[in-house]
Structures are given as C-alpha cells and as structure tokens.
C-alpha cells in the first residue's frame, strides 16, 4: 500500500521536450549554478527548506540537551499548555514538547534512511534496465511488478513481531519500508535511460571504447540526477506519511519510543477534551511533510524552469 500521489512526480520529470536534459549534458557545471539560483529565489521552496532545517536543528539541539525528557514520567498528568510545558503533558505526565521533537527526529531518521535505500536500489535497477534494455529490462521490470504487487501493509503486519520487539525498531521499520519503496525511482531512472541511450554522446562514448559502467556512471546518471533528487525528497515525505499511517494502525514505531504518528494515534480520543495531545503533533507532522514537499517542488521547478513562465 502506498499513499496515493507519489508516482506523478515520477512522470512529471519525464518531460516531452528534453532540451533541458540535452542542455545539461553539454554544460553541466553552469547549469547547476542556475538551478541553485532558481531554487534560492523560489519563495515557497525556501520557506520549506528553512522550516525543515529549523525543525531539524531545534529537535537535535533540544534532544541533545534533554536526552531523557521524552520518557520522563511525572505526576503532572494531562496538563494543559502552560509556561512549564508549552505543549502540555500527556497522560503519564511526560512533556509533550519533548515527545514532539523526539518524534520529529524519529520520523526524519526513518524517512532519510528510506529515501537513501530507495535511491540507491532504484537507481541501480533502473539504470540497468534502461541501459541494457531487452531481456534484462524485462526481467527487472517484472521484479518491479513483484515488489509493487506485494502490499507494504501485509509485509509490515507480518513482520511486526520481529520489528516491534527490537530496541531499535525504527531501523528495521526503515529497512523494510525502504526495500519496498524504490520502484518509483527505478521506473523514473529507466525511463530517463531509455531515452538517453539513443543520444549521440552515448554512441560516441561507446565508439571510443568506454565500458558500460563508465557510460552509465559518467554520462547517464548525472543527467538523471535532477529528477532523482526530486524523487528522493518526495520519497522522504512519503515515508513520513507511511510511518505515521502505520503508527495509527499500531504497526509503526512502538512505545516507549515516539513518532509523530504514534502521538496522533495516542491522542485521537482526546481531540475534543485534551486538544493538545492531538492538535500539536498533527500540526508538526503537517509542517514537516509540507516543508519537504515545498523543497521537492522547488527543486523540480528549479530543474525545469519552463513551468514557471506566465502564460503569454
């Protein structure tokens, strides 16, 4: 099971007019500077980046200064937000701010690992499929089908008994999700490679005797890097959403660890009576995911500026 909506960014990057890709092949260094320039001047993207970094930095610093605050019980249970606890406390007296920030870290931790795995596996498989074509492509794409067919939910519920009991269950969770989330990147890279390998410079390199691997790594992957990065950020956002959904079903990160999804699940009954147990975790989750999406969208439009032209 995947949240609806992640795949379209894949297709989005396979644009009809690949002049941008061609341009990048010829003048790669200058182009990246342009990309950076466009990104930095994109208000929405910068807002997202700043928000995300702010969340990350604040969470890191707070957790370093108060490493055990997220599990510190007290008798001050279900306290409404006050000066002592700006987001209130939960039903065993733990400070909600500490739990929320720790949850942010946990979510980001899982998501980055998932994205890293997805990018590595997906790029490898997509590159091989797109470059070699033919039988290799067929086999690999059927492998992709196999992965797509098996619902993440089934795997996670069934592996829950291994995952839930481990002390670092976030790692296992991330590995399982990551090993099932690379299919979009694979399709994307494959599509890029399929169109790129007809290019003259590829023919030329081959004529010069360059090995397949050199062609792939030196000439083709760099051209696909843009969409891959965009997709990686989307995968990060998607992984956070997936983990919080799993926590809602009780299959994600287990207490006494925290994640934002778990906090929402724990606070759902109290939405009207102790609103801070539900509203603040939900707000932070939303903020986190939206900021990542803003960054992803900013990267996408920085890499492909024609989208931003006003209709003439």
């Amino acid at each position, binding site marked *: 099971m995947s949240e609806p909506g992640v795949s379209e960014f894949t297709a989005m990057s396979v644009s009809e007019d690949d002049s941008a890709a061609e341009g990048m092949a010829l003048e790669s260094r200058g182009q990246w500077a342009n990309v950076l320039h466009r990104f930095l001047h994109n208000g929405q993207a910068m807002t997202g980046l700043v928000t995300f970094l702010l969340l990350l930095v604040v969470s890191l610093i707070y957790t370093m200064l108060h490493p055990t605050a997220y599990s510190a019980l007290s008798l001050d*249970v279900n306290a409404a937000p006050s000066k002592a606890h700006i987001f209130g406390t939960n039903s*065993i007296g733990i400070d909600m701010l500490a739990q929320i920030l720790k949850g942010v870290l946990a979510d980001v931790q899982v998501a980055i690992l998932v994205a890293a795995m997805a990018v590595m596996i997906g790029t490898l498989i997509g590159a091989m499929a797109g470059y070699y074509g033919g039988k290799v492509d067929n086999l690999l794409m059927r492998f992709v089908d196999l992965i797509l067919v098996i619902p993440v939910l089934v795997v996670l519920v069934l592996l829950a008994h291994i995952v839930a009991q481990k002390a670092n269950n976030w790692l296992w969770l991330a590995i399982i999700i990551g090993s099932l989330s690379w299919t979009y990147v694979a399709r994307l890279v494959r599509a890029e490679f399929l169109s790129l390998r007809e290019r003259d410079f590829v023919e030329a390199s081959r004529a010069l005797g360059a090995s397949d691997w050199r062609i792939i790594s030196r000439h083709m992957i760099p051209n696909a890097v843009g969409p891959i990065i965009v997709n990686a950020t989307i995968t990060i956002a998607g992984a956070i959403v997936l983990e919080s959904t799993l926590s809602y079903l009780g299959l994600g990160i287990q*207490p006494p660890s925290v994640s934002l999804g778990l906090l929402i699940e724990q606070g759902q009954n109290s939405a*009207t009576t*102790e609103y801070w147990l539900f509203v603040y975790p939900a707000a932070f989750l939303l903020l986190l995911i939206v900021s990542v999406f803003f960054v992803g969208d900013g990267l996408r439009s920085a890499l492909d500026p024609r989208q931003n032209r006003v209709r003439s």
Partner: protein
Amino acid sequence: MKISKKIRPLLAVVATLALGMNALVASASTPKVQAGGTITVDLNETLAGFNVNNVNSNEFVLQEIMQLVWPTVYFVNNKLALTLNTDLVTKVAVSSKPVETLTYTINPKAVWSDGTPITADDFIYNWQSQSGNPAFTDKGGAAFQPAGTTGYSSIVSVKGSNPAGGASCDAGSAADFNAGLCPNGKTVTVKFGAKTPFADWQGLFGMIVPAHQGRLVGWNTGFNINGGGDESTLLSGSWYYVSSYNQSANTVVLKKNPSYWAKPGNLDSIVFAGSTDDTSGIPGIQSGTFNVFEPVSTSLAMIQQAQAAGSSVSYNVQPGLQFEHFDFNQANAYLKMLKVRQAIAYGTDRSELIALTVGQAAPTTKPLNNHIYMNTQPQYKSNGNAYNHQNIAKAKALLKSTKKFKLEKDGYFHPTYGPEKGKDLSLNISSTTGNPIRSQTEQVFQFQMKKVGIKINIVNYAAGDLFGTVIPGGRYDIAEFAWVGSPFATGNNSIYCSYTNKADCGSNWVHFKNKTEDKLLAEGAAAANPADEAKFYNEADAILWKDMVTLPLYQKPIMTAWSSAYGNILPNASSVGSTWNAQTWGLK
C-alpha cells in the same frame, strides 16, 4: 530523576463520577418505561457464526446477542449474584450422594420458536457437544469443537424422564424425534463422576443450543448463517429471535419472540450495529447512531467525552472481571529465587501505577489482592496486604540477603552468577503491542524498578505472538496481561496447578510447582457447597502470595455509556455484558 509532585485535582473527576453513579442508582429503582420501541447496541466486533459455544464464535458481543435468543439456566445479575431462570427451569435439586446429581425440572410451557418443546434432549445434546468426549460426534462424524469443556467433561450421564432409556438421536433424524426416540421428558437428571464432582455447576447449560436444529445443520458450522433469509435456522427459546442479519454491514436485528411462553421482552426490537473502534463511541451515542456503547478499553478521554456530552449521555464505570497482572517466569535464572520476586513485588508501587494509568479514568480503582476472586465478588479475601505499599528499602534488603547480588555505583544490582554476571541485572517485561495503558504501565514499572536497582527492558509483541509462542514457549521474563475472572473459580485451575502436569495445567506458563496448591485447587473444584469452595480457593490464593507466583495489579475498569432516553440499563461486569436484562429495557 525528579518527579514533579503536583497532582492534578482529581476531585472534579470524582464529583462528576458521582453524578454518573447517581443516575445509575436512580434508574435502579425500576422507573416506568414505555412499552415497545427499539434500541441500538454498539457492535464492535465482526460476527463469525452464531453458535456462541463453538470455539470459532465465542465472542463477547455474540454472548450479548445470543443470551436473548437461546435460554440459560442461571443468570448472573449486575451484582454478580446467580439467579435461577424460572421461565426455563422451575426448580433444581442438588444432591451429592452417591455422586453429585442435579435434577432440573423444565417449565412445561417452554418451547422453541418452531413449536418443538424444550426437553431433556436439548440438555443431553448440549452436554455431548461440550464434553470433549470423542465418542460424541457432530453431523457427518466430525468431532465437536467447543470453546470450553470445563464442567461438562466431569459429567458422566444426562438422562431425560421420558423415555427413561435416554437413547440418543441420529443426526438430522427429525423423524426419530417425532417418533419419540429422542428423550423428550421435562425432567433432566445430570450425574457427575464419582471422582469428578464440579462445584460451579450453576455455570453449566447457558445459552442452550436447540438439539433438533443442531443435529440437522451441524453444531460446528451449521449456525454460520449468511443472513438474507436463513435466519430461521436460529430458533429462539427466549425473549427475542434473530429477525435479520446483514453480513456485509455487520448488523443484527432482534425482534420479540411471539412464541415466548412467559413475560415477553419490553422493547419490540433490539438492533446490534455500529462502530468498529472506541473513538466513535460517545459521538455515536450523541449522533444517535447507537444507544448503548461498551468500549473495549476505558480511558480518561472517553470519560471526559461522556461528561462533555452532558445529560444526553449516561455512563457508568465499574471494576470489570478482567484483572491485569505481572507473570514471573520462574525458569529465568534470577526470577527463580523467591526473594528476587518478592523484591520486585515490594518495589512495585501499585497505587502509583494505577494513579498514572487506569486511575485517571476510574479513580476508585484499588490494587487487587487476590488471584482468584475480584474485589467486587463476595468471596474476595485480601491476601496480599503485605504488598499494599511500596517498600524500596525492603526490596533492596531482600536482594542483598540472597548474597548473590551486589549494589554498584550506577544504582543497579550486579548478579554474581548467571548470564548477567557482572552486568546490570536486567529483566524484560513483555506485553501486547498497540495497548497504550499497558505500555504506560510498563514505563511506570521501569521507572519504579530503577529505584530498586533492577533494569527493565520493554519488549512487546503482537497478541497472537505473545500468547501463541512467546509466553507458552517461556521466552519472557516478566509478562503483563489480563486474565478474565468469573463468578466460577474453577477456570483458574489450569493456570495455577503444577506445570509439570502438562495435560491439566496447560495455562501455567510461569513454571510454578506446588503439591499443596494442587490439592487445594482440586478440593475447591470438587467442593460440595459454595462456602467450602471459597475456603479452598482462598487458601490456594494465600500460597500464591507466599510464593509470589504472579503479582495481581488491579481489576480493569469497564465503562458502559448509554443514551439517557432509555431506562433500566444496568451495566454488568461479568461476561454477559449489559444486555443481561435487555428484556426490561425501554424508553423513559
């Protein structure tokens, strides 16, 4: 680590709780209710078949439904007292010589809804199907799959008055039945074995399956109706019958049984439908989606929701018959020492634990001091008073006195032997995942044990795993889960008798062995009268405390909420649930 000493005023909660209780008391003085009408009870489990005595369908919500459809001999009322159902059985005679013998006299007017009289045949069939005796088979020669055989397996014979021979019928032999081959007398004689008397006989013959139907359609799967017409398979012998079952929507509609021979039910129909999770409960009552709601677990948030709902929602929180406890695996190298278990028990502050978890929803919850009987049962005797208050000094002293542990600078004890020699004494506590109260309990326990000097790791499993392989396989140190108590104590035997007896003591997962305990449990199960039964079981309980076999924590509070428009709703903590008197419910 400092604990903030600010305690939120619980007075507000207690005051409103009292208000809720007042509503309860007021309604208990039988208000006049209107005749007729309908009510909707929340059904929060999917139904799988209707034979509630079969292992596949033995759900709590199904019991709530079927007790209104199939007749029961003894009722458990909301005070947990047993009363004879004189509509079904006009009198019961008990004798214990030469063997325990029960003689039921069935009401001559009692009939099933298809006109067939309720006779000894029904009692014989229900005994055979739940006896666990392979000589009796279901339709097609398959073995019966009962949910429980306790008590029935101690019965040696059940005979009807006419014909005296009590020949059994062939499956599906309605003709035989009409020809009088099946016993169809109105007097039933039940004889127990000479060596197997059974003290809790009043719990037998509940929700009696109609024999002639059962033989025809099959006991195991014949009552797995699909709805849409085949509801007629479910004959009724009580106030209501199943008028419709919508399998896709998971709803059941009961209507008044026109063939009922005694005082009929008050409401015209009772509908079971509704939510699948607790968050929809109080909003469901407020929106009128259903009128009675019994959540799976009670939380403070739910109580506050009910309070905030105002006068339209009445609710009641009372101790249920499930009790939460800690199991100590005596196969563990350290837990096998009595002093270690006692140290843990002295180090656990049960009151604080309760206050931080269930106590928020039910502030009157007290620590439970008996393994067999609950605080609310008349037989309750507090055998665990020694552990009422946390005593860290004593816990530490106990550990030191074993001469096998040394208290180190980091605050933890280090054992001088075993797998953790030289390291912090660590024990795992395991429970079910996805249960916030349990995970909070584990965190509080971890915190308390730190003060004693024991490191606790929390390792949880999915329920199927925990009970399927982890606990029975002994792969745990301390386990937290709940047992279900009942007015019938004999169900406890297989938990506490010596684990070496694998056949009878399959639920003893703590590796506890004690000959005196075995003797007392057996005497309790065979006791001739309730007073003796209580005496033996309480003595058995005292041994469990002396040996610190398991540490009971508290009776789990259960909440019932209902729409204030209805009267006579009296929550019942036993497994029969709040529909125990549904035949008297009505609109105010």
